[in-house]
């Protein structure tokens, strides 16, 4: 098992090199001159631009820039932004906030998605099942920003129950509404996955055997039906963590959360290439780790799966 984890973690190195090289090549190929744009409408004088370019190695050829970046990364120096701040500081500010938000969303969608999905699956074709299916379809169909604005206006402005924005103080309470909005779409998917899976397993042979043995109903449901139904759901949740980290840009924008999505978007528009590469690489790593966790969870859920 440990050997397996170690081998999987070693794979991170080639993935990291490949990802940074590809990303670096892509941001390098982006049109436009970020240094010239620093001056706004007035523009910067050629001399100042030249000075800034040499300061950030932007006057060197692509491969030299990339190797200098790698050299920095090895010594944990991810470079500076044009605003003279270490890239690592910016990442260290944005990532924890988004991670907190993504984790809250993940917990919400896991608890409610699996819970409702289980009930719906057990009573397939019932009123609860029908209602939940229609509602989840609705949630999938409504764009995030519509849901966000409606919740902000109703829950935030009119009822005044929760803060509208989380920018000044992203704590548990202020992140609750954004986490719910962020979780909504995935929640609907988790619910539907669980429901289908549970409905399928409930008529499986081993469930009939368990019942025939005289096991209590609750134990059959949790231990036999649910546990076996969770494999596809866990796969989805694992991939979703990565998506929630990098893809929360719309939600972060609406709720003014200074997280990864907004930082990445600004970095792309202002041509902060080292920040783009570092942040995106980090997201790649999150995906890798989340996938590893999912694989390990498989073994916990299904004893037949062993890693060596």
């Amino acid at each position: 098992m440990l050997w397996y984890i170690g081998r999987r973690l070693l794979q991170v190195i080639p993935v990291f090199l490949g990802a940074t090289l590809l990303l670096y090549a892509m941001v390098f190929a982006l049109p436009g001159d970020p240094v010239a744009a620093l001056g706004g409408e007035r523009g910067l004088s050629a001399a100042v631009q030249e000075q800034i370019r040499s300061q950030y190695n932007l006057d060197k050829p692509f491969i030299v820039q990339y190797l200098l970046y790698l050299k920095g990364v090895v010594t944990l120096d991810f470079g500076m932004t044009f605003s003279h701040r270490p890239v690592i500081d910016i990442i260290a500010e944005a990532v924890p906030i988004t991670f907190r938000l993504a984790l809250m969303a993940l917990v919400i969608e896991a608890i409610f998605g699996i819970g409702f999905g289980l009930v719906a699956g057990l009573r397939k074709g019932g009123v609860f099942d029908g209602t939940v299916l229609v509602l989840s379809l609705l949630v999938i169909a409504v764009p995030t920003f519509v849901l966000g604005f409606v919740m902000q206006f109703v829950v935030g402005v009119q009822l005044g129950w929760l803060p509208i924005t989380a920018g000044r103080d992203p704590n548990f309470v202020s992140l609750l509404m954004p986490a719910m909005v962020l979780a909504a779409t995935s929640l609907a998917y988790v619910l539907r996955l669980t429901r289908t899976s549970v409905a399928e397993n409930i008529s499986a042979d081993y469930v009939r055997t368990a019942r025939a043995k005289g096991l209590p109903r609750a134990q059959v449901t949790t231990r036999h039906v649910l546990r076996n139904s969770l494999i596809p759901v866990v796969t989805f949740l694992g991939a979703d963590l990565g998506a929630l980290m990098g893809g929360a840009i719309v939600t972060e924008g609406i709720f003014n959360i200074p997280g990864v999505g907004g930082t990445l978007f600004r970095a792309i528009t202002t041509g902060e290439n080292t920040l783009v590469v570092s942040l995106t690489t980090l997201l790649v790593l999150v995906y890798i780790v989340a996938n590893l966790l999912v694989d390990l969870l498989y073994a916990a859920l299904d004893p037949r799966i062993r890693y060596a």
Partner: protein
Amino acid sequence: MKLRRYAGVTAMTVAGALALAACSGGSTGGDDGASGAGTAFVTVSGTEPQNPLVPTNTNEVGGGLVVTQIFSGLVYYGADGSHHNEIAESIESDDDQTWTITIADGWKFSDGSPVTANSFVDAWNYGILRQNAQTQSYFYSYIEGTDDDGLADGPASGLNVVDDHTFTVTLKSPDAEFPLRLGYSAYYPLPEAFFEDPDTLGEQPVSNGPYVVEEWNHNRQISLRPNPEYPADGPRAAQNDGVDYVIYDNEDTAYLDLQAGNLDIIQNVPASAMGTFEDDLGDRAVSIPAAIIQTMTVPEYLPEFQGDAGIKRRQAISHAIDREQITETIFNGSRIPAHDFTSPVVPGYSEKIPGSEVLDYDATRAKQLWDEAEAESPVGADYTLQIASNADSDHQTWVDAVCNNIRQVLEIGCEFYPYPTFAEFLNARTGQAVPGVFRAGWQADYPSMSNFLGPIYRTGAGSNHGFWSNPEFDQLLTEGGAAATPEESQEIYQRAQEILFAQLPGIPLWYNSTTAGYGEAVENVQFGWDSAPILYEVTKQG
């Protein structure tokens, strides 16, 4: 047994999420000005400063508003664009070229060190020094000893300290408006401590203005508190307990927070609320002209706009644009039709400069002028005018409206020529690669007509992206700068504008207005000529 293992994983995840969520709570707790109860910090919306808070390197509005709160210069601007001495006791010159500046006694930085002549001269020389690559260097290009970009490889010869309270500035050419420039942030002083550690003091400035930065929580909030060293009887002494400058990425969100009472002042009304904000906010809605003009620059390198026929084409396009209608329907009144090349907020503004009739909508005259130009040197009936702009903010709407006008009135083609980002757009402009006319916006740095004319239309100026050149115009700008009184120079600048109206190197479209609003918890909210709220005057009930 096996079930328990699984349950353990879930429980850990939940606990982890809660613990993570909880750890943020403590760090900023207790400073919750948003609720409005008990504290009297004024909250204002803004954007994250793009650079460290150093006056010589702050050239955008996000950082600009903060820098003007925490630093004080020789002069400051009133809401109406008038200028008054702040740290200066006197700014005098016999020939408008060599200026002697005397500093008043008793001014201190927030670390207790005195503001001396060296504080100014060293700060400006820091901005001038080439290797520092400061974005504001352009503003020192008037000073003797710098090159055209305002840079030098050592201290500028035009800056000389006489004693602790006196220094002299020698300009390259006479400029009667020099004292007027000095309220701009590039001319603020810097403390001695700054030069020892610029990086730290850019994050946590030592400053001499009405406020100091208590904490800069990046992308979230900048807490400004009254500067204990700022004199209580100073002209800009803070009338409130402090200002929380809250960073918003999204103007719609800020507007919602204002409506819910979580935010006191918004600096911009979002486009989605432009039609309703005056009803929503009542007498707490702000709509005043700004020192910003939008023009369409006609580049000189386009053959169809050269010579006599070219001027007729420029006039035809200008006459074909129905500015009244576009500002009303597209912008909901948040733009004001242009009547000159400057802005209504600058002293000396006039709607009646001879030649300004070319900005009036006149379909018949427009068509007639275009036909005359066609008779002289035809471009053909299938000619298509390109109007270029960056497409990363909302420009397509008004370009489409202008194009509709041009298509209908002049019976030629017209289309939007988008550049994906501002950086690419700027590259094309400076590289003479734009295949048509293009959008150019200009915001004044100090309230003077010359600040609208010189940087854009003077031969070889930094933002003269149309590459227009006219010796007579350049001469008038120089004369205007050397005139004995402001009134006299304003009159000369108006004459310079007559040349612009005759040749139309750019076609003025409209002025921006400052559209903003404030909540019920604050009083005395006023927006200045530069569209920025005058924060030190704002009062808030605790």
